[in-house]
């Protein structure tokens, strides 16, 4: 009996974490869908439920308004919209989930990009009555731009189209037409009704023609271990640990998170940008030394040779190095109210490294409603997604964003305000 329980507990503790993002406005039923996931997976507490029941009654809603579970800040409640990304949590016996709940409207593109940046999966909601609309393209484009590994297209409000299989298939066809223009790796379609609960947590009795799994089951079982690049070892140094006293007087550990790949004791490594080579002599954690580290572990590395290494340097395998570039192309999303200024210097944060850069050239702007390039308009304003050429004062050690989400991404910081003004993906 006791053994059984410990095995079960162990299995629970071996569960993985899956981050997914949703985008949408109130009308798409996004809040209802999240409310349904939380409610049907019993992640809602009684005091939350009773406060929501009260509010639902006060507002004259018949039953519980599931959308109220995602209620946020004062302004959002007053206007009935999502503005900022809100994070929500639920756990099932199979996985822990983090939802980045983002707005869907074009004026909040930057918030969608933010929510999508760490997601393993994205849920794109389509209203079965309307089919693929501008917003669908926008959300899918952002998911492809941010290279979210898995996309789940939920065709919602199936109850309002008589649970029609034909309608479902029409929308899949429409969606595949737009998706073919984008870089989408893995896409699945699920017909649901968030309001009625069809195919969200429980299999729908109204759509026996659908052979696939309900949404929650899909999220619980999708393969995510390969979402992280395990080939190219990249270890940006965050800080150097030097106790300087006691038994660890001579210890010098380079602390950081292995952003991709695998490193082992004895591996020949190269320290960039200087280019010195050495061997890993130990990989340390508080819980003891380990032989093998893999992404995304936070570790401290010691080397056989004494080399001057500090924050911003990157430790990689000698035979697998990132590109070292002073000029490169990137897609950026402008995040700030004040527009980009030509020839202005920005600070780039790329991994733990900072340099001065400028936007040398704006190549084109993406119209994310039509997925067409705009070559004429050269201004970069808030929410714009543009292809640009960046020039830095010193070389940066970069990878393509497509290959590596963490060494392929960066932010730009405006030195006059200290604000984060742009998010970039290296091409």
């Amino acid at each position: 009996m006791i053994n059984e329980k410990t095995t079960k507990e162990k299995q629970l503790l071996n569960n993985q974490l899956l981050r997914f993002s949703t985008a949408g406005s109130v009308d798409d039923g996004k809040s209802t869908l999240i409310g349904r996931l939380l409610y049907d997976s019993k992640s809602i507490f009684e005091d939350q439920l009773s406060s929501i029941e009260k509010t639902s009654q006060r507002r004259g809603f018949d039953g519980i308004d599931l959308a109220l579970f995602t209620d946020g800040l004062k302004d959002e409640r007053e206007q009935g919209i999502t503005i900022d990304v809100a994070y929500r949590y639920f756990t099932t016996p199979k996985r822990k989930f983090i939802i980045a709940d983002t707005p869907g409207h074009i004026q909040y593109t930057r918030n969608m990009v933010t929510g999508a940046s760490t997601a393993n999966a994205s849920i794109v909601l389509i209203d079965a009555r309307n089919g693929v609309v501008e917003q669908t393209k926008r959300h899918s484009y952002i998911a492809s731009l941010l290279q979210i590994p898995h996309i789940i297209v939920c065709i919602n409000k199936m109850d309002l189209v008589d649970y029609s299989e034909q309608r479902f298939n029409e929308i899949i066809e429409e969606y595949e037409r737009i998706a073919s223009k984008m870089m989408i790796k893995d896409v699945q379609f699920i017909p649901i009704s968030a309001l009625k609960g069809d195919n969200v947590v429980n299999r729908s009795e109204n759509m026996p023609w659908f052979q696939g799994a309900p949404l929650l089951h899909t999220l619980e079982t999708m393969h995510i271990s390969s979402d992280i690049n395990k080939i190219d070892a990249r270890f940006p140094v965050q800080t150097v640990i030097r106790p300087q006293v006691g038994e660890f007087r001579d210890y010098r550990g380079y602390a950081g998170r292995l952003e991709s790949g695998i490193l082992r004791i004895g591996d020949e490594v190269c320290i960039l940008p200087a280019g010195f080579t050495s061997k890993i002599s130990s990989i340390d954690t508080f819980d003891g030394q380990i032989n093998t580290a893999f992404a995304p572990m936070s570790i401290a590395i010691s080397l056989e040779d004494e080399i001057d290494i500090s924050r911003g340097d990157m430790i990689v395998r000698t035979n697998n190095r990132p590109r070292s570039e002073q000029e490169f192309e990137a897609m950026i999303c402008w995040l700030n109210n004040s527009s980009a200024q030509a020839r202005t210097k920005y600070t780039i944060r790329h991994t733990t490294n900072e340099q001065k850069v400028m936007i040398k050239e704006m190549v084109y702007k993406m119209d994310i409603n039509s997925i067409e390039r705009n070559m004429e308009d050269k201004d970069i304003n808030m929410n714009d997604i543009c292809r640009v050429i960046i020039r830095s004062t010193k070389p940066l050690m970069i990878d393509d964003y497509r290959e590596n989400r963490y060494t392929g991404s960066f932010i730009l910081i405006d030195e006059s305000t200290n604000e984060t003004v742009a998010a970039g993906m290296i091409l």
Partner: protein
Amino acid sequence: MNRYYLNYLEELESEAIFVLREVAAQFQHPVILFSGGKDSIVVTHLAKKAFFPAKIPFELMHIDTGHNFPETLQFRDQLVKELDAQLIVGSVQNSIEKGRVREEKGKNASRNVLQTTTLLDTIEEHKIDCAIGGGRRDEEKARAKERFFSHRDDFGQWDPKNQRPELWNLFNGKHFEGEHFRVFPISNWTEMDIWNYIKQENIAIPSLYFAHNREVIWRNNSWIPNSEFIQLDENEAIETKKIRFRTLGDITITGGIESTADTLDLIVAEVSSMRQTERGNRADDKRSETSMEDRKRDGYF
């Protein structure tokens, strides 16, 4: 080892350690806001792990309302000694005496709101540019919008509508003189994660979290501990109950729940079957629908 993925607790731990190392690298004078509660204890434990074998590069800062559980203070002092760390205490009592704040009156008076002034004064006095907190996004709807690196202007205020976007793992802690940051390394943890982690790591926590017999008063739907700071109503009576606390704060407003869970295993089992949120027993959150958001805007934890 042939498993090449982290389980969820390992991933949360790695994320928190990454954030704590960013703090050490990006700020001049960071402190851990230490309340003696389980969340700040877990943050301190993570800091220990992040900088091992060196000492933690942060001082601990306690905002002391003067209405403490004696057990919490004892625990705090013991931990500070163990870590060989420095302790900064900001005293609400001093703020009252100096006339910086005025004590609330009446039965439901609390020093909860007053803490904000003391906190901001202490941050200014010690020129602290980063206060690391144990806030979690699952606690409350205003906290669900909080960033890992959360900017505070030179009045200590939070502007929820104008937060810096936070993408990937690129945290921007740049700030001007007089401004500071609040950093929340365990943003993505839930109450359940905290308990599972405390159990897994065998982290010491104050005895108040375990079921024990205590004199209590039934008030605002929870068991408020009897203490020298409590004024009794004529309808209220002191009873002795077996209770434990799910959160720890000012003794005058922290309600306990009836429980027999007196080991970590039993607590984990109890929390996983719990149908009420942990802050349901906090009188400070019940003042209005947006009380947390309002307090946070002003500079609260």
